[in-house]
C-alpha cells in the first residue's frame, strides 16, 4: 500500500518521538482531516497543538497540499492522494 507523508516543523518534532515525517498508509485519496487523525493517533499532544478540541485547525497552523494552503482549498476536507506530501508550517505571527 502507498503512503502519504506529513512533514512537521522542527519545533513539533519532539512531540512525534523526534520524527520529522509521519506517514499513513493509503490506497486512495483521503482528506487532510482524516490524514491528521491517522498520523497523530499515537501522539495526542501533537494532535492538540495542530487542532483544537472541535477539530478545527489552529489559526496560525498552516497545512500545505501541493503547494497550496488548505484554507484556500477545501480546508480539512481537502483530499490528498497516495504519494503526496503534506507540509505543516507555522504561519508568520507573533511579536
Amino acid at each position, binding site marked *: 500500500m502507498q503512503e502519504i507523508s506529513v512533514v512537521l516543523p522542527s519545533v513539533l518534532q519532539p512531540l512525534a518521538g523526534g520524527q520529522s515525517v509521519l506517514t499513513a498508509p493509503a490506497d486512495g485519496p483521503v482528506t487532510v482531516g482524516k490524514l491528521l487523525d491517522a498520523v497523530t493517533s499515537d501522539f495526542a*499532544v501533537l494532535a492538540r497543538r*495542530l487542532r483544537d478540541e472541535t477539530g478545527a485547525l*489552529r489559526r496560525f497552523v498552516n497545512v500545505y497540499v501541493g503547494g497550496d494552503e488548505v484554507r484556500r482549498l477545501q480546508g480539512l476536507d481537502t483530499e490528498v492522494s497516495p504519494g503526496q506530501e503534506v507540509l505543516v508550517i507555522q504561519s508568520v*505571527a507573533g511579536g
Partner: protein
Amino acid sequence: MVGMASAESFVLAIGTKKGLWLATSQDRRQWSFTGPHFLMSEIPSIGIDTREGRTRIMVGVRSEHWGPTVAHSDDLGATWSEPEQGAVRFPEDTGAALERIWQIYPDAEARPGVVWAGAEPISVWKSTDGGEHFELNRGLWDHPHRSEWGAGYGGAAAHSIVVHPAGETVHVAMSTGGVYRSLDGGTSWEPRNRGISAYFMPDPNPEFGQCVHKIAADAAVDGRLYAQNHHGVYRTDDNADSWNSIAEGLPADFGFVMLTHPRREGTAWVIPLKADGERIPPDGELAVHRTDDAGSTWQRLSNGLPTGEYNSVLRDAASVDTAEPSGVYFGTRGGSVYASADEGGTFQEVVSHLPDVLCVRAAVIAGA
C-alpha cells in the same frame, strides 16, 4: 500556614508574554532565577499548590501557534508534565474550544486535591486530582445569561474564583458579566452585582454585565469580599448581596489588582491606574495602596518603586505570600517585578526587562 523565617524558603513565579521565570529565595531579598520556561508561549495563569507538603506549580500556557494547555511541575520547574489529552478540554457537545486559562486556584487545605480554573471562553472548571484533569462546571456554562456576557479587551473570561473554606460558597468574577455566586458548591449560580457600576452600559446598574476586574476575600471575616472594578473599588459585607464603594482616599478608582491578606482582617492592596482611557499609574508615579481597615482609609506605598513609570499592572500580575509578615509582589507590562517582604512597606525590584508580566504568584515552601 505561617512559616518560620529560619525554616522556610520562597518561590516566586512570573508568567510573561513570552515564557515563565521561576525564582527561589531564603529571605525574599536575594532571588535565584531559572527560565525562561516555555519560551515564546504566554503564561497568563499560575497556581502554586503547597497543600500537604507538596510544591506543585501549575501553569496555563498558550502559544499563538499551538494553542493553550496546562502543565505542572513538582520539582520547581526542572521538569514539566501535561496530560496527553489536555487538562482542560471542552466537551464535544459544547462546540467550544479552550482559548486561554486565566486562573488556576488551589482550593482550601481541607480539600487537597481540588483545584479550580477559570478560562476563556467564560467558563469555570474543577479538578479533583491536583490539577491534572479538570471538569467543566455545567451550572455556569449552561447559565441563561451566558449569551449576554461580553468580552473585555483581553477576551471574555472567568478570571477570579474565590471558594469559601467551608466549600459551599463560590464567587466567580468575569469580564464582562460581573460577579456570580453559588451557594451549593458550584451547582447553581446567581449574579451578585448590586452596587457595582457599569457606567459603560445604557443602564449603569444592571443585574449583570459589569466589568469586575478582580475580587478577593477577606480571610478573617465571613461574607466580606473586595472588588476592583472597571472604575470603582468596592467591598461587600453580606456575601456579595450588596457592594459599597471604598474608593475614597485612592488617587484613582481604576485598576486591575485586588489582593487580600492571607489572615488579617481588613487588609487589602490595590494598584491604581489613572483611568480607563489613561491606563498608567496616576501622574506616572507607580504606587501600591493598602488598607488596614477594610477600605475606610488607604496608605500610599512607594518605597523602592521607580518614579516615571508608565506601564500598567494586570489583574493577576500581583500576589501575596503567606509568611509573617506577608510578602507582596507585582510585575508590570514593562517587565519589572517588585517584591516586598513587609506587606508593601518597602519594595525591591527583583528582576527587570522581562516581557510583559501577565501573572505573578508567590508561596512559602518547605525547606531550602
